[in-house]
């Protein structure tokens, strides 16, 4: 099945199996997102990419495009909701940008800037989260995990190691490591694994890298989240079909 949809009045073509997000990004139309990455099957957890499709709110990264679908994306109301979601992510974890090595390269931080977030808005949860430094080359800091499952997907689908998973429900959901001790150092993950390089925040860091990238050269010193994601789309051949669907 192929055809066209309209996004904010613009006609956008799609081909069989493409989601609204795939079609939009390919046509250079930006829908803000965090858990979507065209290299992996979509997941639909961050909800930043929610659009109105034929009058219904849907996650554009999981919703297949269908002929003549009318999509509303870039409106003050939807962007306000997106900002609120980012603000919730910031207070749900412990995101201390001033002391985070990922600052300037972090998509959560970039989303905050892109959506004009000026303050945390909600009460901080300050949850007690685990730090796992047991791996010789990788530092896992769950304070910064936003449960996007990109590491889960990368380890399972590309590295074929299943190092990560999500445990717990609702607000108690958290990233777990698939080893008897629960420690990353006791898995077969290596620093060259895809899963070590997909975290959109600073939850998975490569040890001893630190602040070697000077201010001015970091990803989001040079481009907005929109430009970053549109370029990412061009680099990648998208995978087919939503996760499990």
């Amino acid at each position, binding site marked *: 099945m192929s055809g066209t949809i309209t996004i904010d009045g613009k006609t956008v073509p799609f081909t069989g199996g493409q989601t609204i997000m795939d079609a939009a990004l390919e046509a250079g139309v930006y829908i803000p997102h965090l858990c979507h990455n065209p290299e992996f099957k979509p997941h639909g957890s961050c909800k930043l990419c929610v659009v109105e499709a034929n009058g219904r709110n849907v996650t554009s990264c999981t919703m297949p495009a269908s002929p003549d679908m009318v999509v509303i994306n870039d409106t003050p109301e939807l962007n306000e909701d997106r900002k609120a979601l980012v603000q919730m992510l910031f207070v749900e974890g412990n995101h201390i940008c001033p*002391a985070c*090595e990922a600052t300037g390269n972090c998509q959560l931080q970039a989303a905050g800037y892109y959506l004009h977030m000026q303050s945390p808005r909600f009460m901080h949860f300050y949850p007690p989260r685990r730090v796992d430094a*047991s791996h010789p080359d990788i530092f896992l800091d769950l304070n910064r995990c936003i449960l996007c499952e990109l590491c889960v997907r990368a380890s399972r689908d590309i590295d074929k190691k299943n190092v990560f998973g999500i445990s717990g429900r609702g607000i108690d959901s958290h990233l777990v490591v698939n080893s008897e001790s629960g420690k990353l150092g006791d898995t077969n993950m290596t620093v060259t694994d895809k899963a070590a390089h997909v975290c959109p925040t600073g939850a998975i860091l490569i040890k001893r890298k630190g602040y070697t990238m000077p*201010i001015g050269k970091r990803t989001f010193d040079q481009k907005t989240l929109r430009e970053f994601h549109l370029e990412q789309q061009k680099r990648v051949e998208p995978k087919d079909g939503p996760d499990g669907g």
Partner: protein
Amino acid sequence: MPRELETAVHPEKLKRVVIEPVTRVEGHGKVTILLDEDNRVHQARFHIVEFRGFEKFIQGRPYTEVPVLVQRLCGICPVSHNLAASKAMDVIVGATPPPAADKLRRLMHMGQMLQSHALHFFHLSSPDLLFGFDAEVGKRNIAGLAMEFPDIARQGVGLRKFGQEVIRMTSGKRVHGTGVIPGGMSKNLSCEDRDWLLAEIDQVVRWSQEAVNLIKRLYGDHKDFYNDFGYYRSSFMSLVREDGAMDLYHGGLRAIDDKGQTIFDHVDYSHYGDYIHEEVKSWSYMKFPFIRSQGREEGWYRVGPLARVNNCDFIPTPLAEAERKIFKEYDEGRATHATLSFHWARMIEMLHSAEAIRELLHDDDLLSNDLVNTGERQLRGVGVIEAPRGTLIHHYRINEDEQIVRANLIVATTHNNQAMNEAIRQVALQYLDGQQLTEGLLNYIEVAIRAFDPCLSCATHALGKMPLEVELINAEGARVQHLIKDSDGKHHA
């Protein structure tokens, strides 16, 4: 020395005067003074009432993150914390930074010294010195300075701006940059930035000379007052270079006693714990360090500009060295222990920093790309630097997983803790004893504290210019006098 004023024999019978917070310093502190019926001073204490907890909450963090994290201790001298921590991390990564990185760090540090000293002198202290300690309070601030002495205020702002630009160009940001990394630097100085600095530096040196002349003139105009205000003799401690020169970035520890005799010299600072101990007192969050060989009672000392200018054998830049000689010989050396001499020494250091920047800017190593060395990882690292306010010690231990397991930070203001208490006790005896208290008189106490340029935020491991509240409570506990100063400087009862 008025040591008996630390603790009154019968405090329950005395009136309590509180200066809280102390203003025009960085951070939050208070002074309490206990007076009897005749307003005789029986106790004076300078308390630090902030608690920061950095040493605790960096535990578990990766060592690479720490130099950037701990610089958030302070917005005035973050570079100092960044550099002291990075020097400790150099040891932990087992690498001496290449010459280019060493010079870039020194350049950054001199920019920091310049901007911090300019901030303190022009913005925080010169209103007291130019208008008088008990001048109209609405005038005694940077805005009043800009009105009456616009040229001086402009130079102060210009010097600070230049220092901030040096920091930005070497670290990436004016405040809290990330250019310094364990084992070296992540960036060099661009040709364009170097040329901009070169175009400005001669004026900066000139302004710094004028600042030295200004403090000399003020000192000369009121010589006896400047000499005697809060006067006491003390030991001094600072880093010095191998040849005895002033070196604000690196060296060995030197301490001299109040008669100028050497206590220790060229001490490898990684063994600082063998020479300095810290005492805790129940009434302040700030510890009281002392030189071990001198004992708990007599081992306290001063650090900072006055200590450095007194301790070094010479300053390795010509204009500042000439000024050091004038200072040392002034009034047969009497200025070398005076509380208000901190200002004079600070301006000599600002001039040295400007000259050092000028020298460095002609070194092409600053443009090099050979910026990082690596080595064999260690589990313990100590980094020491002369921060604007004095000797700054950072000491870390990491585990095999490269996480911080222990940290000890001794900052300049902490070294000066006992000395600041001595200064306010002297001033309380000299000017407050038996007097009816006024805001102007209480400002004398603050002037003594301000001379040290204390950073109370750093010292307890907040924010300046907070309102001042003074309460006078009689022996029955009733409030007899109450003065409030708002953050905009307005007074009301």
